């Protein structure tokens, strides 16, 4: 009731990239999918190659030169709308960048670019930000990513947090480097939740009957439930999935779950429709910072989920050379700090914290307060001990495995 202007955070909440998997606003995607179907029989895309050929990097990059222009596909509100970082990049290198906020949810974006990639045609973007998850794995599996040439990424090599070089979804950063990460934990409204939740079992507490929000994304909800039943999501087996699904079913049958959300949970949490829910760290932080809400975020004792959005170069990019330059540019601590100041998500560049702290000293008034808050926020710069508790989504080795996983968790969220 308090907002009579469109707050960027609200807008981001409505359009937020993590949230759109089942996004009804993307009905257009159905049209794209339908167009794909019109081909009657659908050709397979798997290359069957699970390892990278040692000469892949040389093979891809040899003879490639920059064209001086990069087309960058990203999620909405994932950079200051004035694009100060890109302006600096252009000033420094002479390379111009067209920045398009075209990725609203991955299934739709994937459906859109997949036919072109399959036909070895340019998708019109040289750089795209893809979340670790099913689509990321498919892009790897189908051979749609260009292998990154680390010899041309000095900033990355120097400044990246070591954790990000050993990710299960892309060990050694063969195809991707992180743009930003976020944590899935428990968000709660202290107005209604008097004892701060510490455990995933709090989501089963009957005093919250009908007031618990869960994610409808099966990758998300699966990780939470697996942690709740004591399984490790990354190495989980189908029997773990079943146990986790039973835990979720129990929660649903007890009438605890208000709804399986995928994007509008922040307003529901602020206005008391739900009291606690699965939530993304950045959303909670931004809502507090911009809407003046007093929402809290906790990483459950059993652990939480870490997800990472990654910069990747499609194999058919027109200008991979300058695109790689831009990727490395974002690993300059000053640039990474400036980006984190706007987006409030975890930066893969630890040195950015010092940059933000220095900016806070130079700033005055509310700006200084906000920057200080950011530099010390455990959600934007989580402690190593919090990070150690976080897990990634289950990475699927085969489509059959993924289908099995879906068939176990889908009946919960689409019951």
């Amino acid at each position, binding site marked *: *009731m308090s907002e009579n202007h469109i707050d960027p955070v609200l807008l981001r909440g409505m359009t937020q990239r993590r949230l759109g*998997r*089942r996004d*009804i*606003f*993307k009905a257009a*995607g*159905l049209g794209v*999918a*339908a167009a*794909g*179907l*019109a*081909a*009657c*029989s*659908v*050709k*397979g*895309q*798997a290359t069957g190659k699970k390892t990278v050929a040692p000469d892949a990097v040389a093979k891809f990059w040899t003879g490639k030169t920059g064209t001086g222009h990069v087309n960058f596909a990203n999620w909405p509100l994932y950079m200051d709308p004035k694009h100060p970082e890109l302006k600096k990049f252009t000033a420094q290198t002479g390379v111009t960048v067209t920045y398009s906020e075209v990725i609203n949810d991955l*299934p*739709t974006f994937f*459906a859109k670019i997949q036919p072109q990639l399959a036909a070895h045609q340019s998708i019109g973007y040289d750089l795209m930000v893809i979340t670790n998850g099913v689509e990321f794995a*498919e892009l790897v*599996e*189908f051979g749609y990513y260009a292998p990154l040439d680390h010899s041309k990424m000095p900033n990355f090599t120097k400044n990246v947090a070591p954790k990000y070089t050993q990710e299960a979804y892309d060990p050694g950063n063969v195809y991707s480097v992180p743009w930003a990460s976020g944590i899935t934990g428990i968000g709660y409204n202290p107005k209604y939740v008097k004892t701060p939740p510490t455990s995933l079992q709090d989501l089963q507490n009957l005093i919250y*009957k*009908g007031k618990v929000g869960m994610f409808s994304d*099966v990758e998300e909800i699966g990780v939470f439930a697996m942690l709740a039943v004591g399984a490790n999501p990354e190495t989980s087996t189908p029997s773990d999935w079943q146990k986790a699904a039973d835990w979720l079913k129990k929660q*649903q049958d007890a009438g605890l*779950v*208000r*709804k*399986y959300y995928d994007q*509008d949970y922040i*307003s*529901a949490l602020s*206005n*008391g*429709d739900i009291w606690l829910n699965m939530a993304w760290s950045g959303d909670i932080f931004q809502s507090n910072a911009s809407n003046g809400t007093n929402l809290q975020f906790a990483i459950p004792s059993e652990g939480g989920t870490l997800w990472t959005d990654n910069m990747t170069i499609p194999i058919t990019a027109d200008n991979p050379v300058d695109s790689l330059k831009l990727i490395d540019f974002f690993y300059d601590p000053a640039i990474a700090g400036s980006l984190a100041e706007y987006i409030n998500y975890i930066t893969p560049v630890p040195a950015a914290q010092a940059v933000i702290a220095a900016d806070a000293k130079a700033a005055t008034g509310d700006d200084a307060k906000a920057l200080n808050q950011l530099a010390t926020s455990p959600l934007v710069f989580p402690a190593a001990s919090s990070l150690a508790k976080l897990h990634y989504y289950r990475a699927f080795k*085969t*489509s*059959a495995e993924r*289908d099995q996983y*879906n068939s176990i968790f*889908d*009946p919960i969220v*689409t*019951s």
Partner: protein
Amino acid sequence: MTVVTDRPAPVSSPTPEPARRSGLLDRMRMRAVPYLLALPGSLWLVVFFVAPMIAMISLSLTQGDIGAGFQQTFHWQNYTHSISTYHVQFVRSLEYGLISTVLQIAIAYPVSYWIAFRGGSRKTFYLFLLLLPFFVSFVLRTQSWNFMLADNGIILGPLKNAGLLAQNFHVLATTPAVIGGLTYNYLPFMVLPIYVALERVDPRLIEASYDLYASKVRAFTRVIFPLSLPGIFAGVVITFVPVSADYVNAYILGGPKNTMIGNVIQNNYLVNQQYPEASALSFALMAVLLIGLFGYAKALGTEDVLEAAAG
């Protein structure tokens, strides 16, 4: 006034046209005209309806995944499997569709009746008022119900504070919320055809029934209502299908157990990339809805259907 004059019966043999040399070619041309005129429409239907439909049927019988591709194996189990997995959502959708359609008739009929017979010179204005909200995207309108009906929102909040409602009372995330949303969103599509049918009722027929000593009720049940049936039929045809296949209202206003078949299909297409299963479900839904509508048409009589189709 209404003197019927006996006109001479039309001549049974058409007046002979002046004979032309190329009579045969001309006749062929004449015969081709209707087909040529129908060509754009037919092409449209073939390209945008028949072809996708065949593709969908074909796809619904394939097996595989997006990685390995979908191979045509005439895998009928896609139908049995998906229907047995999602029969709850299937039946639920038809149920919601039915309840919502009946509610729409109940609400739309008095509204149309009032506009048609009491609207006077402002009829168009009232119709415009009715359509006005629909200039805003229906997703936004549905979303705004979320705001208005929030547990402690502008409607429920004061009622709860006044002690008129229990603290844990809520409207959102319930079955009535979803059915209410469906009814609200599709109401104009029910009002308009009923209005058109009522508007076309000849007032002289109603006067005649009064002249024959019919009471107001009897005039309504024997004259007006039967004459408005085609409108109701058209309304049902227009609304029942999209209501049953809707996925927006369940998504925005529903709770964990309000998933409709549209949500399942959308999820299978876009999220799980299970094209065969999603196609099978879409096709099964279409078949059920078509059978339902034809059954309904049969029960109501074909003339009414034709009349409804004629507008």
